[in-house]
């Protein structure tokens, strides 16, 4: 069973190698890539089932001791992320396959598309499964390197321009991450996360804080948290629609996943939770103002992406079980819905020939199917009941009420306001692209939409509706995941053995209080901030 853990990384890499060899046979490439992703999706489901039944899974590669070797770990959180991400990548791949029958075919060199796409999937899986910081870094690099290639597919002028900023910012974050790993190794003598959890607890608060901040900056650049988010809206919109969909759905969430691990496993209840909340509030508000001001469909969506990262950071910043559970649910919801929206934007671009909201118009009559396919995820993103976005936001707001601090109340106000403004931005898109009087050009341009593209988008919508329908069991699952993440002992115990887990100094109980050697400190955060 443990060996299954290696497959989400190994299979796509193997698939990438073979598809690269088959570069003259596009159909074969596509088939192989689809088979690989279906296999990963199945494995992710199996892992999720196994993890709920038997607890955390650990694979020690080459049987090295965890402190020295590479460890792959899957707990509930990892399994959920893997399942959602593999479904999204599969749907997007199917969607992009139809572009070869659309007119865009000559513009994208398909030969390298599939291998790079599979490498990206390998990088994402590796980042989710990594049991040590350095392996996480390698996973990040694998996915970033593939994202550079995907962003510059075809090497056109606008893409080279957009990619330049993206590459520079990403490499900078990698350099920061790498130096943070060096600092962590110097301070703790290991990079294994479970062992770090034990050893970092004993460090001085000042050292802990520096290490935490360095890692946080590196991850926050990847997750596009507000002061570090300026690169995102400039680089994403120029890429092909399916590529943007995967980037928007997955790459930022890998950053959020890393922040979640950082704030729970490595530095539980750190001194900077107020900083996180402030960043969350600013991301929410400033991001959505950017979205309101834009006139290009893809840019509006990119800005809402920046804004909604704030919701997830809000949940992480509170460090209560309710908040974490809501965040985990929200991550799953947001990966799906944001990718779906970008796929729908691709459909609109396909039909209307542009994503400029001033030039678009009349699509509701001209392409009713696209209108439906855009409407559902858009309402979902804005948090209209009964969709999953509503459930996630209600969960976060409930957690904020239970948190009951000034910062929590401010954040609740900001998130409600953001939700409203999201609805405004979405309504603006709807008015312009679907209701506005269409130009002659758009009426004349009667391109049939390939069934595969609408089919893949429908599948994504069905998945997001499944998140809504099965919200109950999923919330329970997310709650258990949050519980085990905050307790830390299941993770550390599975990697190092129960004895080491007993050495953990801190844990967080259900009420979000920090427990130090079994003594509950009332209002621990306030004391930490004061001290």
């Amino acid at each position: 069973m443990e060996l299954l853990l290696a497959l989400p990384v190994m299979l796509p890499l193997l698939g990438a190698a073979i598809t690269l060899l088959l570069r003259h046979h596009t159909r074969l490439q596509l088939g192989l890539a689809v088979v690989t992703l279906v296999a990963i999706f199945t494995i992710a489901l199996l892992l999720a089932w196994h993890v709920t039944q038997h607890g955390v899974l650990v694979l020690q590669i080459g049987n090295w001791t965890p402190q020295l070797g590479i460890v792959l770990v899957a707990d509930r959180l990892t399994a959920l992320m893997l399942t959602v991400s593999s479904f999204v990548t599969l749907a997007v791949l199917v969607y992009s396959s139809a572009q070869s029958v659309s007119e865009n075919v000559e513009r994208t060199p398909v030969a390298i598309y599939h291998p790079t796409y599979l490498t990206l999937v390998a990088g994402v899986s590796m980042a989710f499964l990594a049991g040590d910081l350095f392996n996480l870094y390698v996973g990040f690099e694998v996915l970033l390197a593939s994202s550079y290639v995907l962003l510059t597919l075809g090497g056109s002028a606008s893409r080279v321009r957009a990619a330049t900023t993206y590459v520079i910012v990403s490499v900078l974050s990698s350099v920061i991450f790498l130096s943070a790993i060096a600092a962590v190794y110097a301070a703790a003598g290991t990079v294994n996360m479970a062992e770090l959890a034990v050893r970092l607890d004993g460090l001085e608060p000042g050292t802990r804080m520096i290490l935490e901040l360095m890692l946080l900056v590196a991850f926050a650049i990847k997750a596009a948290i507000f002061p570090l988010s300026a690169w995102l809206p400039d680089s994403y919109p120029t890429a092909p629609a399916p590529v943007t969909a995967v980037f928007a759905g997955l790459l930022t969430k890998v950053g959020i996943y890393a922040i979640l691990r950082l704030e729970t496993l490595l530095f539980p209840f750190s001194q900077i939770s107020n900083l996180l909340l402030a960043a969350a509030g600013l991301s929410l508000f400033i991001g959505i103002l950017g979205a309101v001001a834009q006139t290009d469909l893809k840019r509006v969506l990119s800005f809402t992406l920046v804004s909604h990262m704030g919701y997830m950071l809000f949940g992480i910043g509170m460090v209560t079980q309710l908040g974490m559970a809501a965040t985990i649910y929200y991550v799953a919801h947001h990966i799906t819905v944001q990718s779906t929206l970008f796929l729908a934007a691709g459909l609109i671009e396909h039909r209307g020939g542009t994503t400029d909201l001033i030039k678009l118009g009349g699509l509701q009559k001209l392409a009713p199917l696209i209108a439906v396919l855009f409407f559902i995820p858009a309402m979902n993103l804005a948090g209209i009941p009964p969709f999953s976005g509503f459930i996630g936001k209600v969960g976060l707001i409930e957690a904020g009420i239970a948190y009951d601090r000034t910062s929590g109340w401010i954040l609740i106000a900001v998130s409600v306001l953001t939700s409203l403004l999201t609805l405004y931005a979405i309504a603006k898109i709807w008015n312009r692209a679907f209701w506005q009087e269409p130009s002659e050009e758009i009426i004349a341009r009667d391109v049939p939409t390939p069934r595969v593209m609408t089919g893949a988008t429908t599948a994504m919508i069905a998945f997001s509706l499944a998140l809504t329908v099965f919200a109950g069991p999923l919330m329970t699952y997310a709650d258990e995941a949050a519980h085990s993440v905050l307790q830390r002992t299941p993770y550390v115990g599975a990697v190092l053995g129960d004895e080491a887990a007993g050495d953990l100094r801190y844990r967080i109980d259900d009420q979000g209080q920090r427990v130090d050697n079994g003594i509950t400190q009332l209002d621990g955060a306030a004391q930490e901030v004061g001290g």
Partner: protein
Amino acid sequence: MHVSLALLLTAGVLIACGIYLVLERTLSRIVLGFVLAGNGVNLLFIVAAGPIGSPPFEGSGDPESMTDPLPFAMVLTAIVISLGITAFGMALAYRAWQLFGHDEVPDDVEDRRVLRRRRRRSEDAERLPWSQALSEEARRGAIAHSQGLGTGEDEDPLGSDLTSAEDVPQDATEADEGDADSLREAMRRRREHRRGDAAALRHEIRDRTSDEEDI
């Protein structure tokens, strides 16, 4: 823990020089900057490895006196990764040079838009002082203007700036470059190469010609 001051200083100087280069405007210098900074960070790993010891070979001596080999393994991995990323960065710089004749990093699109809007609003008012213009090119234009070499009064200094994303044609690829004849030439060669795809290529050429007619 013993720390080698020489290593630490070298790392510091490398990283400082790297950051300085990263602040430059051309991509090739930025890539060089990342190479320097990356090397500095790699030295930090060697600092983290602790005091110098004997080579870490199994059975060659007392394990206590050996150097910690783990950071070196990480440094090797980091070097390989930075090699790949550097290669990509250089390729990107070369492609930018091919397309635009320079490899300057573009300004933020929003910044330019805000500037443009402000210029439009204050059209009747006096021109913006050069220090408020955003780009290097605009600044150069303003300096040239002040020295009497200036362009016409109504010419937009931003217009000459290739780094504006809006001046860039949307999604033209390498295949779109050059005139139609050379394109057909390339098509013919490809057709001979792969006869099976003839139909698709004919379709493509029809698309191209219709594009040209549109233009």
